[in-house]
């Protein structure tokens, strides 16, 4: 695994932590005072800081550090998380997200904003607490005994600089300069099982200052009662460092949740000093110069023996005992792996209980999905050829094939489920959008999200963020009124924007509701007339007027604001939703607000389609677009102009679109009476009747991108492979409907660009 991959994982984790952070802060904002929530928030910032430190992302570390300090005040109860405090914190979370993104993708962040927030955070951290706690950064002069930046030796150990002067007369003086902290550190077994090593942590600790250490071995049980992979040792460390408590904590960054860690200023610690503190001071140079230690006997010698004697004893004994030792080692080898395997299994079980997840490269999942798609196609081809060659029709092969079909469908569903992700992250991003816009517009807005755990294909999620952001901006900027107006209208001055997601008949429905003024139809209508979208005397239903906002270049804001009304508006939203195979509709009640609802497919990999025949070609029409199918009667067909035809359905007229003609499958218009009409919903809410020659049936098809394998074809959305092995094109209903309008389509396009 190279550094880039690790970096990538770090940023993925950052995203999770940021989401966690925001969830926690929002909970706090709602009055949750559970210490665990505060801890979760703190942990999130802390982890980001830790990881960022490892990658030397200094800006990120610096900001996270200040943020963390303030959060720590909340955690320790020194700072009451009031609404105002949380407002700053939420903003800080946004900046932290920005900094993370900047660190990942390059680019810059608004420095003045983060600087201002740093000041606010610091003010919060300092404002309500005595200076005693806020003194982790002594500005004092360098200590008399400078901490030697000792080089790492070959064995990877860092010598710990130590001066005996500290125990002499100079001690007090030195203490004045760099504060001494007493650290108690007790690792839990998880620390080791996660691959951390206490010795390495202690080594790192030794690097930030002069330290002496005492190891408590009292908890170590006797040999037969101990778990070799348990954790029994604990340490009391006295360290003199300029880095302060934060510096010490940063050493334990990744281990903090797997150990008991207590850091105190030495003065405080002395007050309740009950430990027999026997520090073992050392310096590597002492190793070579043993007499210098004087009364510090060599480590490990038992009572009277001296090193030489021990060596001799060992040498002699080694000769005698080697065979025995080897034999016992062999015997042990059999047991030991079994024991460690059992231990590992236990650990695995414990982990499983906590809900295990793995990170898998998206490419791999996509490859699997692709292969499963091929499998489905292949299975369909196989069963088709069996049916064709089967004379009696009841062979056992058919039974087997049916089971195979069920299995493949199940495999396909399971594979799709891998890609399914909750919409939560997108919804959370919207919370930020709402905050920012509310700030800019001076409106007070509350975002309520529901059904965040509704799952949908990751591709859909990724592409959902942009249109949703647009819509939220619109809802807050155009939809909600200013607080004064709201009060005047007898509403809560705080506007509500509700974002909900739910599954409905195999699709995901996302609704965005605001309790604002609703669509001002008069204004919309006037604007549409001004923009030549409709004629002044056009007679439009309320629904049609509402749908005008989806037209390109439409903006009802009186003046172009910073937020919305830059010419890209709801038309872009509609287009992106449609590109996802979705539909968007709007409902609005004057004075009560508007609801936008989007219906999206759960996946972009398979599609329920109606297989139809047009001029000898097989086409697939997405089922979601079809409202109904009907057999036209000659009496219902009316000519309109030179080439246009209308079909009358239940006393209303609907343009008839000959798909074969539009796609240039045939030169002449087909006779409608010989074909079938598919009534489809098109842009703007209007309906069109697509004329095809015949319907073959309904089928779930695996979508194969035409762009990726060939090139974009107008009127065609994608392709698929049918059971007989032939390629069928999937119709782009909106493009076909648009093309049937001919001139008007091109005009719209030029408006948009």
């Amino acid at each position, binding site marked *: 695994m190279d550094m880039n991959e690790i970096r990538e994982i770090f940023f993925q984790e950052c995203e999770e932590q940021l989401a966690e952070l925001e969830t926690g802060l929002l909970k706090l904002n709602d009055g949750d005072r559970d210490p665990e929530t505060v801890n979760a928030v703190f942990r999130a910032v802390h982890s980001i800081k830790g990881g960022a430190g490892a990658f030397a992302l200094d800006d990120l570390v610096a900001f996270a550090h200040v943020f963390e300090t303030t959060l720590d005040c909340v955690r320790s109860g020194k700072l009451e998380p009031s609404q105002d405090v949380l407002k700053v914190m939420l903003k800080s979370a946004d900046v932290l997200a920005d900094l993370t993104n900047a660190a990942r993708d390059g680019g810059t962040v608004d420095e003045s904003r983060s600087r201002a927030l740093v000041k606010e955070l610091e003010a919060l951290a300092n404002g309500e607490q005595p200076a005693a706690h806020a003194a982790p950064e002594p500005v004092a002069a360098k200590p008399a005994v400078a901490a030697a930046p000792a080089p790492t030796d070959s*064995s990877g150990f860092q010598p710990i600089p130590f001066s005996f002067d500290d125990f002499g007369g100079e001690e007090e003086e030195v203490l004045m300069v760099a504060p001494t902290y007493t650290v108690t550190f007790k690792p839990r077994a998880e620390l080791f099982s996660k691959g951390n090593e206490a010795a390495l942590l202690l080594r790192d600790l030794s690097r930030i200052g002069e330290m002496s250490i005492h190891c408590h071995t009292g908890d170590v049980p006797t040999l037969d009662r*101990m778990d070799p992979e348990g954790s*029994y*040792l604990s340490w009391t460390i006295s360290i003199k460092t300029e880095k302060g408590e934060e510096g010490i904590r940063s050493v334990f960054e990744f281990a903090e949740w797997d150990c008991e860690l207590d850091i105190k200023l030495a003065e405080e610690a002395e007050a309740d000093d009950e430990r027999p503190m026997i520090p073992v001071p050392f310096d590597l140079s002492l190793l070579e110069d043993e007499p210098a230690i004087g009364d510090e006997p060599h480590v490990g010698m*038992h009572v009277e023996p001296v090193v030489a*004697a021990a060596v001799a004893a060992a040498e002699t004994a080694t000769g005698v005992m080697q065979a025995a030792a080897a034999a016992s080692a062999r015997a042990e080898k059999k047991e030991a792996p079994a024991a460690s395997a059992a231990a590992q299994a236990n650990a695995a079980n414990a982990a499983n209980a906590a809900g295990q997840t793995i990170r898998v490269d998206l490419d791999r999942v996509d490859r699997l999905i692709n292969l499963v798609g091929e499998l489905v196609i292949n299975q369909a081809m196989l069963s088709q050829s069996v049916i064709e060659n089967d004379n009696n029709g009841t062979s056992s092969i058919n039974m087997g094939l049916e089971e195979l079909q069920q299995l493949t469908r199940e495999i396909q569903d399971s594979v799709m489920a891998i890609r399914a992700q909750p919409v939560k992250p997108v919804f959370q991003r919207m919370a930020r959008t709402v905050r920012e816009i509310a700030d800019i517009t001076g409106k007070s807005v509350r975002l309520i999200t529901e059904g965040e755990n509704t799952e949908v294909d990751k591709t859909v999620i990724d592409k959902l963020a942009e249109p949703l952001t647009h819509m939220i901006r619109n809802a807050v900027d155009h939809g909600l009124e200013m607080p004064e107006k709201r009060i005047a209208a007898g509403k809560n001055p705080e506007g509500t924007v509700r974002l909900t997601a739910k599954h409905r008949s195999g699709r995901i429905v996302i609704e965005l509701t605001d309790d604002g003024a609703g669509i001002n139809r008069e204004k919309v209508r006037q604007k549409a007339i001004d923009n030549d979208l409709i004629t002044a005397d056009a007679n439009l239903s309320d629904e049609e007027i509402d749908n005008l906002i989806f037209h390109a270049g439409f903006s009802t804001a009186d003046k172009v604001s910073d937020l919305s009304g830059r010419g890209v508006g709801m038309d872009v939203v509609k287009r992106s939703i449609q590109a996802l195979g979705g539909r968007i509709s709007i409902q609005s009640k004057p004075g009560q607000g508007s609801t936008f609802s989007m219906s999206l497919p759960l996946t972009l990999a398979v599609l329920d389609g109606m297989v139809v025949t047009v001029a000898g070609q097989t086409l697939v029409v997405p089922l979601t677009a079809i409202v109904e199918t009907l057999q036209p009667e000659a009496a219902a067909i009316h000519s309109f102009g030179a080439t246009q035809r209308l079909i009358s359905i239940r006393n209303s007229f609907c343009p008839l679109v000959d798909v074969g003609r539009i796609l240039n499958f045939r030169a002449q218009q087909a006779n409608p009476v010989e074909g079938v009409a598919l009534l489809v919903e098109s842009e703007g809410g209007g309906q069109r009747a697509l004329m095809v020659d015949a319907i073959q049936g309904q089928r779930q098809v695996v979508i194969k991108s035409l762009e990726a394998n060939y090139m974009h074809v107008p009127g065609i959305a994608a392709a698929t492979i049918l059971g007989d092995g032939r390629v069928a094109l999937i119709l782009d209903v909106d493009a076909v409907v648009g093309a049937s309008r001919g001139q008007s389509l091109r005009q719209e396009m030029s408006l948009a660009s």
Partner: protein
Amino acid sequence: MAGKKSEQSLKLAAVLDLNAASVLHGKLQSLRGSDITVDASAVERCGTQCVQVLVAGAKAWEADKKTFTIGPMSGAFEQTMQLIGVNFEQILSKEIAQ
């Protein structure tokens, strides 16, 4: 003391990491009941958990009233002991004092 019949020796492996702890534990268990010299001269890397096992061993030997000696030590072993502040001398003498 060289050549004492009941004296045994245990040569520690070069790498005493997490995985080695169980192995070491097992080895020590099997050597209970006689004086022991632990040879740490080949140790290149020593983790905390193996130190724990050794500490537990020292205690066990103490309880058995047998001698537990850490014999020749490699530089790395010595450094680790100092780094994590484990002093077998103290552990053993404390046991005696009790």
